[in-house]
């Protein structure tokens, strides 16, 4: 910015910076988005001396606090994250003078980039002493006490990889387990094991060996041979994954006799990485960052290829979509220049799911989500044209929508899914 004299932030909102000093005895609270992945990330950060805790409070009071402390037209994820933080800070479970908050930030053209600011505004009056830390890869809000070093980034990436793998295996085993709870037990065991690996120097990098062990263990679970309809879940990143936001959609689908198919977090990471590369192609602007992103993208994509290959080698489970294939799928419907929110990725995932036989698709979104007008609801017509059997239902989530209403709509979709053709 040219004009450095101009003050950037007002005095209306108090900000506390997270310092090296605080690292010692502060607890950093993490919102409830992807339980498996985030628990691994927390363990990874523990290796560097940060004490983090995943919030799991899901009571009604979370929504009430969110409504009270956020603009009610703000998106549902913002409302829930803020509600969860406020409830935690007010609950007395934490020493508010020794607590910090963590939120991820992408820096895209969607409202989501503003979450961290909304959180600061929300806590400013009552808890000005609580620092809010941004977790991002775009260099926003640099903080020496919370740096993005290569070792940290490596562990974050591996957390995503193992988290995706475990989520995939869980979803493909749980609906068919013969002994109730056996899948959950196995998952818990693996979460513990990977968590421990994260604390070690480099053994967590032995992906192939670890994947194979995971695949072996899950394949050994006694499962029925039933044929259950596979239901894809796509949508806005928070609502798609967070059980708090989607009323535990995953479990609901399993209880309805379906197999949920939730694309992994790595897709979203690759999508973010490809953003700058796509822009470079479209607008012919290449900077040092573009090249760095290109290298990063290649590395991540190789990781995905490896994961797919290992799964295919074993041949028991359904692998994730190849990201390059997703990009091709997107090109049939829209330009990859659509890069706000989850952008073209949602369209691509819907198309890829329909193409690979998961024709029942639930598209989850916060009520009034701006990018989703275009990439989700806006594209379902053309996807249905291409795949006439695609059975897509868009479900809006917000503080007032009742579970019954949402479930009723999903049931309608399922009735269609099970209809004898």
């Amino acid at each position, binding site marked *: 910015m040219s004009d450095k004299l101009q003050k950037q932030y*007002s005095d209306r909102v108090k900000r506390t910076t997270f310092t090296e000093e605080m690292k010692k005895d502060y607890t950093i609270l993490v919102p409830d988005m992807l339980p498996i992945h985030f628990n691994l990330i927390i363990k990874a950060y523990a290796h560097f001396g940060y004490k983090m805790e995943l919030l799991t409070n899901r009571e009604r009071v979370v929504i009430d606090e969110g409504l009270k402390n956020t603009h009610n037209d703000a998106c549902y994820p913002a409302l829930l994250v803020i509600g969860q933080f406020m409830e935690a800070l007010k609950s007395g479970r934490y020493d508010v003078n020794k607590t910090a908050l963590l939120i991820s930030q992408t820096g895209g*053209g969607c409202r989501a980039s503003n979450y961290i600011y*909304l959180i600061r505004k929300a806590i400013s009056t009552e808890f000005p002493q609580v620092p809010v830390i941004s977790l991002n890869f775009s260099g926003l809000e640099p903080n020496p006490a919370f740096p993005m070093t290569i070792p940290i980034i490596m562990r974050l990436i591996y957390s995503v990889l193992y988290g995706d793998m475990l989520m995939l295996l869980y979803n493909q085993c749980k609906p068919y387990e013969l002994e109730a709870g056996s899948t959950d037990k196995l998952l818990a065991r693996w979460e513990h094991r990977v968590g421990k690996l994260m604390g070690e120097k480099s053994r967590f990098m032995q992906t192939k060996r670890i994947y194979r062990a995971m695949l072996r263990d899950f394949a050994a679970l006694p499962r029925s041979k039933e044929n259950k309809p596979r239901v894809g879940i796509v949508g806005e990143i928070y609502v798609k994954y967070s059980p708090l936001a989607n009323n535990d959609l995953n479990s609901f689908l399993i209880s309805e006799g379906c197999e949920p198919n939730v694309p992994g977090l790595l897709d979203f990471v690759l999508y973010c990485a490809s953003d700058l590369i796509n822009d470079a192609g479209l*607008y012919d602007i290449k900077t040092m960052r573009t090249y760095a992103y290109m290298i990063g993208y290649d590395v991540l994509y190789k990781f995905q290829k490896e994961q797919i290959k290992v799964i295919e080698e074993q041949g028991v489970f359904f692998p994730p979509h190849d990201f390059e294939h997703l990009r091709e799928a997107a090109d049939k419907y829209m330009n990859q220049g659509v890069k706000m*929110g989850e952008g073209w990725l949602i369209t691509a995932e819907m198309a890829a799911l329909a193409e690979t036989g998961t024709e029942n698709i639930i598209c989850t979104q916060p009520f009034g989500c701006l990018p989703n007008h275009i990439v989700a609801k806006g594209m379902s017509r053309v996807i249905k044209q291409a795949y006439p059997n695609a059975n897509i239902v868009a479900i809006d989530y917000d503080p*007032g929508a009742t579970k019954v209403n949402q479930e009723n709509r999903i049931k309608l979709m399922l009735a269609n899914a099970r209809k004898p053709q």
Partner: protein
Amino acid sequence: MEKIYDLGIDVGSTTVKTVILLDGEILYTKYERHFSKVRETVAEQLKLISDKYPAAVFRTAITGSAGLGIAQASGIEFVQEVYSAFVAVNKRYPKTDVVVELGGEDAKIIFLTGGVEQRMNGSCAGGTGAFIDQMAQLLGVTADTLDEMSLKSTRLYPIASRCGVFAKSDIQPLLNQGAKKEDIAASIFQAVVDQTVSGLAQGRRIEGNVLFLGGPLSFLKGLRRAFTQTLGLDEEHANFPELAPCFMAYGCALRANELSKPMSIDETLDKIVNAKTSDNIVTGRPLFRDREEYVEFTHRHKQSDLKYADIRTYEGDAYLGIDAGSTTTKLVLITPDGGLLYQHYCSSKGQPLDIIASKLEEIYTIANPKLRIKASAVTGYGEELIKSGLGIDYGIVETVAHYKAAEFFCPDVDFIIDIGGQDIKCFKIKNHAIDSIMLNEACSSGCGSFIQTFAQAMGYEIADFATLGLFAKAPVELGSRCTVFMNSSVKQAQKDGASVEDISAGLSSSIIKNAVYKVIRAKSIDELGTNIVVQGGTFLNDAVLRSFELELGRNVIRPAIAGLMGAFGCALFAKEKSKNTDGISGVLNLEQLKDFAYNSMQAQCKGCTAHCNLTIIRFSDGRRYVSGNRCERGAGIKLENKTENMFEYKLNKLYSYGERKPAGTPRARVGLPMTLSYYDMLPFFHTLFTELGFEVVLSDESTRDTYYKGQHTIPSDTVCYPAKLAHGHIIDLLEKGVDFIFYPCMSYNIDEGQADNHYNCPVVAYYPELLKANIPELNDANFISPYLDINYKRNTAHNLAKVLKPYGVTEKQIMLKLNAAYTEQVRYKKSNEQKALEIIREARSKGQRIIVLAGRPYHVDKEINHGIHKLITSLGFAVVTEDSVAALVDAPPIDVLNQWTYHARLYRAAEYVCRNKDMQLVQLVSFGCGIDAVTTDEVRAILEEKGKLYTQLKIDEITNLGAAKIRLRSLAAALEEKETNEERSRTAV
């Protein structure tokens, strides 16, 4: 062999339907309303069957939106209701292409041919049977009468049907203006049809053989007519089966035949009666711990009562106050010291003019002849009509009236909250002037009348219903959003077995939560101050009052005349204003009242292209009153020496580009849709194409018809109205026969500096992608939509050349012409800034206040702003826009990520307003604009930090400006009051 029957039970949101089949033949059908007593009604129906078919054996299944809970609890098979319909249609009408079903609270469409697809209304959709019931109630008739009336209509008014609350705010002013009920009735049905076509079909046309199902469609002829006409169906293709009301039950019985185990009817009945309810209701604390607490509570509130005086014996001056509200009419007559001589409170039911005239007559008849009405004032939706019709002396805005009244009971009042039939108004008082106003947005209003509607739906009088809640042991938590959502929360609670008492208490508390969370949005209760006065009819309900005190954790003042405060405030105002005069009120006297009569007629204003629908009321003494107009022209008033309006200037300026044509024979005709980003970037693209030798064709100015034109291609019904209009503009250009439409996708806008980034919002950036995917007529050849970032000149030329190749344009040619385009864009911007300064200068020379009407570039579209800028000028302000003043100051310090070009202008405009004493900012927000959830709070913070008032106007497809008017007039009144106070304190020093 013993006969086995098939029984289908359809438990809907308002009715229970039963159908019995034997070998696929219908033996028995029954349709019964359940008044929310779901399980009891089902049991009753089964008893009837058991009497008719004693000891018979049935295969039973349940379907319907309220049936799931019962089915689960009793273990009887459940069939999803759309699936039931599907089965039934396949059996009975296999040639059907589309099924349209309207139920009590849901609407569905099933497309059967060309890819089976089923659509249900979202959680935010009205347009259903309940909506029709609600509207009938508003008109004070039954649904059947509404139907009869609709058949006699002569014209249609636009009514929003997306949600009942919206529609109410369209209908009420029509009623108040004296529009014919027959026309309104037909308009209501048309609104339902529009809602189904746009909200549900979403891009798929309803054509072929259409089967109409559900109660409303089988009982209401007017609705059927509206559907067939709108869809252009002949008798052969529009099928209204006799069985329609029970169709789902029929399908369900068919399914039962395949699914269910035979069981004796008594066994089935037993299962339903003894079904265990699930315990997933969330409950809150009781309103009162015990009787004592209640006694203390009532005693405390008794203290805020008025003195009463006897109208029959009182001699001397009296003051009349009238509040012609949206759903109720209130009238008081007081003595100079505030003694209550006469009061009246009733539902408006149509024409408030008649009610007030008759009450006035009553006053004259019973009053002591020596009572003299010295002055009178009126407020509310019907203000202008009543004022001119009955000769009332003053008309004031509601907020002022309410403040006057509250001040009477509590001179140091800090905070006032008024919950009326349809609106919540809250205002903070600082230095004895209204400091900030919070009104509910159109989507959450209908608060007070909601409880009433609900009480009636459950078969109770409102007063009894409210009392029930007082001692509920476990009030249900019902959520706090809009009433439509509450509706389904209540349904869910009922399904889970909550008692009426618990629901009543839960409703009271959710109304309060709605007010506290959604309207007031106070971070801490201390922000509200110590002295809080509550008023409005809704607070007469003790359960609501108590919920409020509990939510706040402190006691508040509720005057005993809480429901009459608006009228009372008017009377006080009249007294204050007439303090130094000796005259008597101009209100009609008894003789005049006896001759009082009026008739109303409809007309269309020809003053400008907006063509406002006018209602002209002629009174018996020859005076006339015009309403429905947005500017002074409609009322036949000529304004001399008018300051120019920036909104009009910008719009004219943009359309004037349309007149520029290229020299020589054009290469081709290119269409530019006047929508979203083009309201900002038109000069650039227009100049570029004209310079390159294209003939540029602009789409016509938006009207309501533009919306209708594209309605059937809108895939997302919650997107903002400006985006919805884009569809119509594209179709308009296609009809104009252009060679191609050019509409680029732009992630980035122009970098205007002083911001973290320069994005467009996701909708503005990528709407062309959506248009292309949803308007079947578009293809790669006739819709050219490159990705551009015009901050990069060479790249822009490159990307344009790629797509314009078919027209023989090269990159080099484009490079040459781009400079002219950039220059024109800058020139356009500069001329706007110049114009704004001119307007400001002129306003100052005339002593006018100035309002920066801040929104988005596309808010200059008349169909989007509904003439709000004209309304503002008619209140005496001058209007400039955010983009025309933003460049005059640096960006202020802000606490959000400032990354959108349009929005960055808002912050700078707010900063500019802060630096000018005679300026205020009014922010226009399109409904559904998610980004404004970020900007509005920030703009408010910037303004309030510097002691400015913040006013926000939400706009949608609704054309009614009632709420906007209240806000703007309150703003004007607050400014005046502030000025008087400042003067007072200056002279005091």
